[in-house]
């Protein structure tokens, strides 16, 4: 009888993730940021269907026109007569893609590297982290410029270049966390239960790392977007007619006095996105930090 009773009235637990989610929902700033970011992402993805113009379509009659509803260029046009609305969204697509892909690259390398170094420890840890230190010492911009000079401007190169630098931070953070987790009693308990090392890493270490990793990811994406913008601003980023927010800001800044809209719209989108990521990151950090309860 006990068995049936037990089975019929099993109480659902509330996991730490659910708890964190509840706390995040209560955080107005983070929630707004999520909504705004979702909207921007949707716009960016749906860009081709939102406007009758192509991102590289040149309208010779309307060069550097101000935003107007009548001619359909709601953000105006740039100095060669391309529709800025569609270019802004197209640029956003590129910026977000760089942000997400480069972060994913750094995530995969960083977690593997950091968790391995942290869990195994000792000499292995020493060697692995010294490699990280050496890579840290490389002048990043110089490295990128060299790459560009050797291989020509190539968007994939940018992904790799940024990702290859960013995983260093991730590896350090993950290693530090792993070191503390490794000494937690529940890991020792798992060892005492006879659980094997790879299983301990997968089942106990990584799930407990995820919280901090998620926060870090939301803070890395905007950082990467900024780096890309900076590269584009220097003229090292994406190649025409492709564009990104950084490249658009660069173009817009050149004739800021005569056509301020060409600067303001992409800059506004860029700033809003960065804001959102940072707010979400902050909100997540508060939500995932159990000490804040």
């Amino acid at each position, binding site marked *: 009888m006990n068995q049936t009773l037990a089975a019929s009235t099993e109480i659902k*637990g509330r996991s730490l993730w659910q708890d964190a989610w509840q706390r995040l929902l209560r955080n107005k700033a983070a929630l707004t940021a999520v909504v705004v970011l979702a909207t921007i992402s949707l716009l960016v993805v749906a860009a081709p269907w939102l406007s009758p113009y192509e991102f590289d379509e040149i309208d010779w009659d309307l060069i550097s026109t101000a935003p107007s509803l009548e001619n359909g260029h709601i953000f105006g046009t740039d100095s060669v007569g391309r529709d800025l609305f569609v270019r802004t969204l197209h640029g956003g697509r590129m910026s977000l893609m760089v942000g997400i892909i480069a972060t994913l690259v750094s995530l995969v390398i960083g977690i593997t590297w950091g968790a391995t170094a942290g869990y195994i420890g000792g000499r292995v840890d020493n060697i692995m982290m010294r490699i990280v230190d050496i890579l840290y010492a490389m002048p990043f911009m110089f490295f990128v410029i060299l790459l560009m000079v050797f291989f020509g401007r190539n968007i994939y190169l940018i992904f790799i270049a940024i990702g290859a630098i960013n995983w260093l931070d991730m590896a350090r953070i993950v290693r530090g966390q792993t070191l503390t987790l490794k000494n937690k009693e529940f890991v020792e308990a798992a060892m005492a239960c006879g659980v094997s090392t790879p299983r301990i890493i997968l089942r106990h270490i990584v799930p407990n790392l995820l919280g901090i990793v998620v926060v870090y990811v939301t803070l890395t994406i905007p950082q990467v977007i900024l780096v890309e913008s900076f590269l584009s601003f220097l003229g090292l980023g994406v190649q025409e007619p492709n564009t990104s927010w950084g490249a658009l800001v660069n173009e817009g800044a050149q004739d800021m006095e005569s056509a301020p809209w060409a600067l303001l719209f992409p800059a506004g989108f860029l700033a809003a996105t960065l804001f959102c990521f940072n707010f979400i990151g902050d909100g997540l950090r508060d939500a995932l930090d159990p000490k804040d309860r």
Partner: protein
Amino acid sequence: MTKLLRVDDLKIHFRIPGEGLFRPRHKTLRAVDGISFDLDAGETLGIVGESGCGKSTLARGILGLVPVTGGSIWLAGEELAHLSARELRKRRQHMQIVFQDPLASLDPRMTVSEIIAEPLQVFEPNLGKKERKHKVQGIMERVGLLPNQINRYPHEFSGGQCQRIGIARALVLKPKLLICDEPVSALDVSIQAQIINLLMDIQEDMQLSMLFIAHDLSVVKQISHRVMVMYLGKMVEATTRDDLYRDPRHPYTRALIDAIPIPDPAIERNKKFEPLQGDLPSPLDPPSGCSFRTRCPMAADSCAAEAPAQREVSEGHWVSCHFA
């Protein structure tokens, strides 16, 4: 009776990196230094000592969680200290541990059933889902948890309940030896009694052998058949429970017993005793000869010159003191 566990001259030393940039000298921390004891099936041995005396390291050494420097450990007639890591892991189904901090010893991201079932997944991987759940619920009931709480997370339980989860995890494989590392010292007074009673019941039911580690002599007195007192990695006294409390021979044991406050103002206020002075010496740099001599009220010159040997003063009553 057969001996379930025999520990013979066990040594666990750690190398501590020395100071100094050039040619740092490594120091050796003798956490456990020549401990020997044995344990019958169904018997409880209490291990008592202050923090830093090596009692937790001893427990971890027996389980193979820290490398053993010397000596041997026999579990059910098999030598453990020199097994490979893989072989050792297999033996863990016969010996399990309950930790001091109930919440910290449970993975916060796992449900109760996942936690308790973890040893089952390792040692009985072919068990069906239903049977596994059945086993988990059975053991939960045994330790006094409601089986319908199976899907909850550790942070939703109080300290006492978390400790019950920890005990359930340790017992689900039906081990022969249970090591309890200060299982009640982090709990509230009213909960301590519950857990002590639970452990005593279970031990009798399952004919478990238990190593019960604590700093509290009164808790140890409640639960143990025999007691061993440790100081700086060495055994100072070991005997049956009644013998130890009736006739403590080592000055350190006497000091420990005297230092425990008794919850009765009439007794407590009329107690005449001089508490042990000073602190535990650094285990990195233990005193010469008898390690207790720096705090011992009866220390003499011979104590500094020579470490006392373990002597059997009466049957089964071992003491290491020159004056016992």
